[in-house]
Every structure is written in structure tokens, then in C-alpha cells.
């Protein structure tokens, strides 16, 4: 492939990742085009880009998943490249094909490689052919075959979406009676999330660790690895805390996994940034899948290696040679702060940012699209901020994470910051006793600390009495919130009223 200059990049995404990609592109002198749905007209990524285009209504299918609208926006803006971010269309080969068909650079792997590797069933086959170990399983979600496999392998069984990612369309099946419903629910969820309802089955490992290898491949056949990420702290197969290096992972084991990742990438003709995910069980590791895109947790690698993976992606997409990776240094931990009520079964939360205090300081990076007035709607992912802390060693990274999460404060959107703080501050986490069952084993029934609850109850009563937060001692009055609600511009979502601020009378 010829070298292609990227002058204007459209970012086919929203939220923190759109903002993060825009920043790296601007640093490279590349002009940026944001896209936005009607729900995101006033969003941070729209403000950060050099240009911005409306691509449709709030529903993802009509906007961020709308290939025609995205191609149209790119053409009208004069973009010569498109970065898909993660989620949405990032792993859809048809999108990559459409981008290239319209003579633009797709910042990611070639569509065919993406199709082969992005599909988990096909990826398993490639791994088997490359003699990389995979988790025992079958390639289909067909009920009879599933029953047969389950009978042989024994429960629990994991149902996974072939097109999946991030725990969507995934179900753990505890016993035979639950199998059919789980297959159906997973398939429906996968269909809704990815437009592809195919599922397959794997043996559910009891207490594995999830460790992945970051790879970068260029157009000239070179593939390099940038170390590993430990992603074992998961809730319902959604990663919530990631770190690098993986604590206690031996150099020999890391080398074997890196070798397997490079072998897979070479076998598949991989290009651009990707991640080979493995389950680690004692001294064994099993290939899980290749995520043919930038990962949510890529910043932990950036902090250790002092690199910029998005810049690397753009260089590779333009035809540059990939450099040998720099030496890693220290330790980095990422926490995903979600708009969920961790004390109440992680019920999704929506709302508008009324007040916000973001952490900062040495070694602290926060990737977020949150700002005053930002709205979290039910249309999109619940990820609202990523806190990534670097330390000279794991203990410093961990302590910085605890302090930084303590500084994070957000009014208006119930979120998981306090839950994450308690995890990172806990003895099992400090001791790095990690497996994908970490949360079940240690934080299954988390709720807020009673002293925090008492303080909050007193605060709530003071709010009700107007002593704080309203017309009392503190600065911004309830009336001001009302004013913001009245005058808030931009496209109104159906949730705007819900997120608004009416006073109810003093009780």
C-alpha cells in the first residue's frame, strides 16, 4: 500500500474516546471533524474538533451506527480519513469497506482481516491453526449442539456473541434448564448491540485472569507488542479496572503470550492497533479473541510506555513504519467510572452534570467528556470517565488512584466512583489476588460506607432545609439550576425533562 497523507480526520464516535482521538490528531497537525447525534449537539467532542457535523437522531442506529450518514458527513467536510474509536462501527468490516470505497483512509485493520479476526468464531479457528491454545468450546449457538457440548464439558457454560465485545450478548449458564433462555437473551442482546445475533459456547473457567497484549502492525509486515494489560476486575464480563504490568506475571509467561499474540497477528496479516485477549489459568493461557480496534483501556499502556497509541494508529494508517516500542517504566492503573448505581445492582443512571470536581496531580490522567451541563442519556454507553494513574511502582499507582478517586465528585449522575475507590483501597486488590471472579468474591454486596451515608443523609436534610445546595451558604442556587434548565439550548432529548431541576416545596 502506498503512503497516504492524512490531512482531515473524521472521528466516527462520541464521548471520551472521540475527544481523546481529536486531541492526538490535532497534536499531529491533522484537522478534525466531529460527528454528533441530536442528543450530543452541546457535547465536549463537538467543541474540541475543528469542524462538527450532525449525523442524525439520538438513537445509535440512526446516527453513530449510520454508515451512510457518516460517509456523507466525511465527504461534505472534505475528510480524507475516518477513525472509528471503539464500540459503534469500529469492528464492522462493512464500515471499513465503505470508508475505503469512498477513497478515504480507515484508521484500523483491513476490512477482511477485521472480518476474520473480529468474528470470535473465525478468530478461534485462526488461533487453532496457528497452534495458539483456545478455551474449549463450540463454534455455534444452535440449541442441540449447545446441549451436547454442555453435557460433555459440564456447567457452567459461557454463551458469547460471535460479533460481541464488552460483555454484551454474553451469559453465564449455571445449569441445563437455563440454557435455552440464555441463548435467546444473548442472541437478542447481540442483535440489538451489534446487528448480528450469532452466539457460540465456551467452557466457563472457574478462576482465570484476563490478560491481553497490545499489538501494532504496519503496512510493511512489521508487528510489535507493547506489553500486557491485566483486565481481571470485571463485572458481568465488563472490565472496570485494568492495569499494566500484570502483577506477578512472570517474564517467561509474558514472553510466551507476546509470542502467541505476534504469531496470531502475523498469521492474520494484522495491521494497525489491536489487542489479543487471553485467559490465564495457572501456567496456562488460552486465546480469547482479538479486538481489532483501540481498546478502552489503552491509556495504561500509554502511561507505561510514554507513547500515544492513537498517534501510532494515525502514523500506521498513513503508511509509516512502526517503530520498535520504547522500554516500559513503572505501573499504571485505569478505573472506569460508569453512570450506574453500584449500591443498587448497578442500575443505569442518567442525568445532567450539576457539579463536578475532577481529580488531578502528578501521575493522574482523566479521560472524560464530562463537564458542567453534560448530559448522560440512556442512548449510549454508561462509561463517563476513565481515571488512569501512573506510579513508579504498582503501590504508588494504586495509592494515587485511591487519592484521585477521593477527589472525584459528581452531582447529577449517580456513578461508581466510590465503589471503585473501595475496590482499589481494599486488601485483596493491594495484594493483587486477581481473577475474573474478583468482584463476586470480594464485592458482591457492596454498598456505601455507613459514615458516608450518614454524612449524605445530613446533607440531604440540609438541602431540603435550604442550608446548603439551594439558596443557603453555597454558591449556586437551585434557582440558578432552574435557569440553566430553562435556557439550556441544543437538541432536547426525551429525557431532558427528567434531568431537569424543578423545585419541590419545602416539606
Amino acid at each position, binding site marked *: 500500500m502506498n503512503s497516504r497523507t492524512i490531512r482531515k480526520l473524521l472521528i466516527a464516535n462520541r464521548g471520551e474516546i472521540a475527544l481523546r482521538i481529536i486531541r492526538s490528531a490535532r497534536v499531529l497537525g491533522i484537522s478534525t471533524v466531529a460527528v454528533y447525534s441530536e442528543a450530543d449537539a452541546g457535547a465536549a467532542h463537538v467543541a474540541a474538533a475543528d469542524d462538527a457535523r450532525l449525523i442524525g437522531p439520538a438513537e445509535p442506529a440512526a446516527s453513530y451506527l449510520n454508515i451512510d450518514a457518516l460517509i456523507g458527513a466525511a465527504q461534505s467536510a472534505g475528510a480524507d480519513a475516518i477513525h472509528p474509536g471503539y464500540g459503534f462501527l469500529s469492528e464492522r468490516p462493512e464500515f471499513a469497506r465503505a470508508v475505503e470505497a469512498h477513497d478515504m483512509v480507515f484508521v484500523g485493520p483491513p476490512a477482511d482481516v477485521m472480518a476474520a479476526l473480529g468474528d470470535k468464531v473465525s478468530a478461534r479457528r485462526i488461533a487453532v491453526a496457528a497452534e495458539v491454545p483456545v478455551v474449549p468450546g463450540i463454534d455455534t449457538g444452535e440449541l442441540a449442539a449447545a446441549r451436547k457440548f454442555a453435557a460433555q464439558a459440564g456447567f457452567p457454560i459461557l454463551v458469547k456473541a460471535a460479533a460481541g465485545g464488552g460483555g454484551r450478548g454474553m451469559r453465564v449458564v449455571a445449569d441445563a434448564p437455563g440454557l435455552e433462555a440464555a441463548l435467546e437473551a444473548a442472541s437478542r442482546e447481540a442483535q440489538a448491540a451489534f446487528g448480528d445475533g450469532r452466539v457460540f459456547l465456551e467452557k466457563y473457567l472457574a478462576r482465570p485472569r484476563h490478560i491481553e497484549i497490545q499489538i501494532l502492525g504496519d503496512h510493511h509486515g512489521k508487528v510489535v507488542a507493547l506489553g500486557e494489560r491485566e483486565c481481571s476486575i470485571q463485572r458481568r464480563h465488563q472490565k472496570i479496572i485494568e492495569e499494566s504490568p500484570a502483577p506477578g506475571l512472570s517474564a517467561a509467561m509474558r514472553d510466551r503470550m507476546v509470542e502467541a499474540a505476534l504469531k496470531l497477528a502475523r498469521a492474520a496479516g494484522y495491521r494497525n492497533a489491536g489487542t489479543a485477549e487471553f485467559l490465564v489459568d495457572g501456567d496456562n493461557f488460552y486465546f480469547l479473541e482479538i479486538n481489532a480496534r483501540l481498546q478502552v483501556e489503552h491509556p495504561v499502556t500509554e502511561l507505561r510506555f510514554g507513547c500515544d497509541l492513537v498517534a501510532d494508529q494515525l502514523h500506521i494508517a498513513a503508511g509509516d513504519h512502526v517503530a520498535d516500542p520504547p522500554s516500559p517504566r513503572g505501573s499504571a492503573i485505569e478505573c472506569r467510572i460508569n453512570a450506574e448505581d453500584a449500591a443498587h445492582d448497578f*442500575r443505569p443512571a442518567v442525568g445532567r452534570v450539576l457539579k463536578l470536581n475532577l481529580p488531578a496531580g502528578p501521575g493522574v490522567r482523566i479521560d472524560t467528556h464530562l463537564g458542567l451541563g453534560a448530559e448522560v442519556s440512556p442512548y*449510549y454507553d454508561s462509561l463517563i470517565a476513565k481515571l488512569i494513574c501512573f506510579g513508579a511502582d504498582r503501590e504508588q499507582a494504586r495509592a494515587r488512584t485511591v487519592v484521585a478517586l477521593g477527589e472525584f465528585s459528581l452531582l447529577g449522575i449517580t456513578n461508581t466512583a466510590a465503589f471503585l475507590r473501595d475496590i482499589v483501597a481494599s486488601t485483596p486488590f493491594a495484594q493483587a489476588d486477581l481473577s475474573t471472579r474478583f468482584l463476586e468474591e470480594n464485592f458482591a454486596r457492596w454498598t456505601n460506607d455507613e459514615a458516608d451515608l450518614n454524612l449524605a443523609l*445530613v446533607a440531604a436534610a440540609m438541602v431540603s432545609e435550604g*442550608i446548603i445546595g439551594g439558596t443557603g451558604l453555597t454558591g449556586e442556587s437551585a434557582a440558578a439550576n432552574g435557569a440553566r434548565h430553562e435556557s439550556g439550548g441544543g437538541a432536547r432529548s426525551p429525557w431532558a425533562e427528567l434531568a431537569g431541576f424543578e423545585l419541590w416545596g419545602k416539606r
Partner: protein
Amino acid sequence: MKLKRIGDAREFNVEILAREGAVVRASIDGVEFTAEVAPLADGSTMLHVGDRRLRTFGSRTRNAILVAAGPASFDFAPVEGRTGAARHGLTAPEVTAPMPGKVLKLLVAEGDSVKAGDALAVLEAMKMETTLYAESAATVKKLHVSAGQMVDHGAVIIEFSPVPAAPSANESKAPDA
């Protein structure tokens, strides 16, 4: 005043007893607390209660009192007159949406009899499914929404006929979800 956290049933009786300058005395379920209150430039308040000294934000919304105490976020609802049934002056139980989202499926029809544990409806919010189950036996009087419809938090989804053994319904996640 009586407060509960949205999402569980535990009730708290919280009263402000006195306020002298920056010191507020309050009680929670009869236990007294002394709070020191110091305003910060950003509109938050340093609140010192017991061994906690936290930057605290608070605000009223239509449905709740929101409090952020350091990283912890709380949404409290006043207890009296705040349930769906009471709001409509009804005594009949209802199933209300535990979160804003889309009604994916209605699994019952008007007139159906349901027993405890029966799945009633499936909601989707942020791409995750949540199934609503019946907590006790009841008869479906009215479906207030249809499949595909977006609903607010607290919106009535299913209304039951009043029956002698008053059933109620509550949400919980699907067991395998």
C-alpha cells in the same frame, strides 16, 4: 423528614435539630450528629460529620434530593407521598420503571393472572436488559405502555387490579444477567 435511597426500601428519619453559625445538629433515626459546614468557592460545602470531612454537593430535583459526598453519589427520595400509587391517589399496586429506558417486551396481557416470580416485562437501558418480575400473585388491570416505547424513571408500566392479598411487584435483574 423521612428519606429513602432510590433503589431500596430502607427508610431514614432525618431531622435538622438546630443550627448555630457553621454548626448544624441533626439526627438520623434518633441518633444525634454534629455537622460543621464550610462553604467553598465552587458552590460545594466542606461537611464535617464524625470522622468524615468531605466536599459535598447537594441539589433538589423534581424526584429526589441528590447528594455527592466526595466520590459517593446518593439520590434520596422523601418517603411520604412519593410512591407511584400514592401519587395517583390509588391504592392498587403498580409496576413502575426502575430506570429510564426502552420497553423491550411486555410479557403479560391485560387480564392475565400472574404469580410471584413471573416475568412481566423487559426493559433496556444503555444496551443492558433488565427484567421486571412480579413479587406476588395479582391480576393485570392495565398496560400503561407498549413495547418499543421509551419510559421515564418511575413511569407506571403495569397496573394491577386490587386483590385481597395485595400483590406488589418489584424489579430485579434477570438471574443470569
